[in-house]
């Protein structure tokens, strides 16, 4: 799947960004564990990637720093 826009609640701490939940359609997913984080650049924009688990599923959330928007990049069930 390719970067679907999603609503995300996240805590911005000095140590970094920590997603807490995200909503896809009417369903809200609580972030149980952030298993990996990394960042890359798309042109001039820095993107932060978070692999997270929720309800036994694995998701990849991306925070696009330039537009301050979140997308869901991949799902593995």
């Amino acid at each position: 799947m390719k970067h679907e826009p999603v609503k995300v609640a996240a805590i911005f701490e000095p140590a970094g960004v920590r997603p807490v939940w995200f909503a896809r359609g009417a369903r809200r997913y609580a972030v149980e564990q952030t298993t990996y984080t990394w960042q890359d650049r798309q042109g001039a924009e820095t993107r932060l990637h978070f692999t997270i688990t929720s309800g036994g599923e694995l998701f990849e959330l991306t925070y696009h720093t330039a537009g301050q928007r979140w997308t869901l990049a991949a799902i593995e069930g």
Partner: protein
Amino acid sequence: MTQRTIMHLDMNAFFASVEQQSNPELRGKPIAVIGSGRTVVTTASYEARAFGVKTGMNTWQARQQCPQIIFVVGNNRKYTHTSTRIIEMLREYTPLVEVFSIDEAFLDVTGSLGLFGSAERIAYLLKARIRQRFGLTCSVGIAPNKLLAKLASEMQKPDGLTVIEPGRVQQVLERLPIKELCGIGRKTERQLNLLGIQTCGELGRYPVEILRKRFGIVGDHLSRMGRGIDDAPVIPAEQAEEVKSVGHSMTLEQDIEERDEILRFLLQLSEMVGRRARRYGVRGKTVSLSIRYADFDTWVGKQETLPSPINRSADIYRAAVAILDTLVLTQPVRLLGVKISNLRHEGDQLPLFEEERKKSRLVSAMDEVNNRFGDFKVSFASLLDEKPGKEKGSLVISPAWRPDGIRNVEVK
């Protein structure tokens, strides 16, 4: 020369371990990381290695070895980011860090011992921090030089820490097979075996004159290796030799024969080379084209030196096509590579003629857009023929990848 303390750090099954950390379902299972196009194993987890799965196998061979293997398509940007952060950590302990590959580095910690106590302590601190931040393990070797430090890190995997004390070097090397030394490949090993040399001890004692006669200047080096002597310094990025070429190659998803298709890939490669050269302000006077055939064993390569250095993608492409036109291709093509060398470090010069100025302005405008929105956002119309959504650019992390400078190729 004072006694040096060199450390070699080697991330264990790097790509596979990153994927196992990302996806807890994969932990403890045999997995292999593969590329998105061709189906070659780039790294296998230790669980898969136990079944005989090795880097370079295709998926069919890997499944033969381990029917329950899980294939994971690699995410190069995850690996380059992780590697870059780990290298930053290493630089907190010494400025003398030499990145050997994406998952290996040498550190000269001689000058840091007063600050941190001992090399073992530095190793434990690094191992703990890498495990805490990424959940990854590494093997560390500590020795008086790079050759022995690398050898030491190979001795305990995964998650090892091996020290070869200066006084123990001879004892360690005495019965060690020569192939264990970094730099002795299969061919050299066979040649040495023919001289009756099987172990490092035997190599070190072998008359250097005969080695010199057989291997030339390398003979002396081999003799020193056999005795565990290596004076090579740890060279940090800022002291490394200037790069001599800028090149890109790509193994194609399918073997191709059609000229139009070959030209499209050459244009893509020329744009990748040109972009990188322009970003770092270099121009190349020599353009090389390399082609590997479907059998992967034979390849053709040719180069052409031009009257003046170039870095515009269209010029590089034109030169590459001119070389292609001199070649008779005897098989379908599997790999294509374009390179500029004979480099000149010089900024943009305003061309004398208006037509050339227009071309320069066009290239600058394209670069500006691509710098802002990402590579290939604006590109040549003939590259638009490809399947929509198909990634363009470097899909593989080259062994020459480095976290900084011109070798820091952005991978997809």
